[in-house]
């Protein structure tokens, strides 16, 4: 196995540090929101994880197109890594959102466009991994995975707009206002600092985990090859 590169090591350390700082900014530095109180502090990590998850899913769709054109297994490894890390981040987003929604919307869950789309997106990518698990040939697995990731990546935004035909109660904090939204608020400069730092921190953590997952993918491939050799 290749030794861990120095850049990755420093990225590991940087991830821990920025996560610490982001936690401090969210829990201590940012002022308490007047109406919602302390539960609003969930918002910083909610958006941080949501942003990185979205980034990973978009990367996954892009890698699937690149794989289908080039047929180079390298892109498949990148795709799996991006989608797997995003799947976990997105689950965190949903859980954090639920924790926030309980006191603010007075319910853990509601069938709002964003929540519904989030749930469906999670299911699409769980199905993606179930599909991959059912195929032994790595080349075929990569092809099918790429096709499904592409279809899923196209379907998720359409689902979102489709459900948006109905009214939404999810607050739109960034860009635009929604009169029917419940739990909206304006950010003070301190809140903005915490918010942007959380975005930055989770991007760093995402890159770190992404890199680790790619290395794991290389190892998995090696194990599969060794198994084949033993069987022969």
């Amino acid at each position, binding site marked *: 196995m290749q030794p861990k590169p120095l850049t990755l090591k420093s990225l590991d350390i940087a991830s821990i540090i920025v996560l610490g700082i982001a936690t401090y900014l969210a829990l201590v530095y940012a002022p308490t929101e007047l109406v919602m109180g302390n539960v609003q502090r969930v918002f910083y990590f909610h958006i941080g994880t949501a942003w990185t998850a979205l980034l990973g899913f978009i990367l996954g769709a892009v890698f699937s197109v690149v794989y*289908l054109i080039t047929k180079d297994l390298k892109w498949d490894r990148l795709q799996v890594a991006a989608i797997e890390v995003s799947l976990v981040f997105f689950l965190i987003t949903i859980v954090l959102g639920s924790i926030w929604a309980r006191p603010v919307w007075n319910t853990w869950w509601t069938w709002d466009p964003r929540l519904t789309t989030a749930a*469906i997106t999670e*299911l*699409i990518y769980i*199905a993606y991994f*179930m*599909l991959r*698990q*059912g*195929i*032994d040939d790595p080349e*075929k697995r990569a*092809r*099918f995975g*790429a*096709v*499904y990731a*592409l*279809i*899923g990546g*196209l*379907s998720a935004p*359409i*689902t979102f*707009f*489709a*459900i948006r*035909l109905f009214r939404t109660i999810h607050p739109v904090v960034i860009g635009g206002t929604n009169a029917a939204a419940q739990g909206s608020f304006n950010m003070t400069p301190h809140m903005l600092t915490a918010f942007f730092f959380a975005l930055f921190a989770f991007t760093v953590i995402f890159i770190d985990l992404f890199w680790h997952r790619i290395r794991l993918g290389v190892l998995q491939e090696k194990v599969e090859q060794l198994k084949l050799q033993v069987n022969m």
Partner: protein
Amino acid sequence: MVNKATEMKSMTVEHAKPASNFIKVVAAVVWKDLRAELRSRELFSAMLVFSLLIILIFNFALELDIKTRQSVTAGVLWATFAFAGTLGLNRSMAIEKDRGCLDGLLLAPVDRSAIYFGKVISNLAFMLMVEIIVLPIYSVLYTVNLFQPGLLLVILLGSIGYVAVGTLLSAMSVQTRTRDILLPILLFPVVIPVLLAAVKASNGFLAGAELADILLPINLLIAYDIIFIAVAFMVFDNVVEE
């Protein structure tokens, strides 16, 4: 010799009309499926009986009295079509795979997307046949008039989108180890827009809403159909490649 061969090949390519050839291949695949079905009738009868059973289950699950009926008819219908649809799609591809028929099709020197469109059309035909029988039965059982041109259009558009994606995904799922259970898991999350728009539009027609309100979901259905037929057309080669 090689030169001559390529020359001849280019000549034949020049002479053949690609468009009419393509349609011929599509028609051949559809014809094959319809004839096989006409002889065995296993796919159609399974889908139909399954649909009726689902409606029966909904009857008990939702207590379809007159008041509930008005609000849930569209939902019950589309849930029925979706479940019966996976049954048909799974079987239609499994037959190809089991009897080595797919390999034969792939060996044929034809454009593979023609095979895709052939399968889509035959799957769509089976689904529409089932729907055409389920609709009057539902109408009789629950005294709702389902024969409205608008509703039929919605059912056609919805079925096209469902089958377009379903055919592509069933071609993948039959080639996996978990073939029998995988198709609905792959298909349902990505056809949610179809089901959503179809239910909304069907509800609109059944409730006698104004056309302007129904136009939005219908446009969505058309957009979904076009996008996913185009994508499936582009990626189908990757799914059947050996």
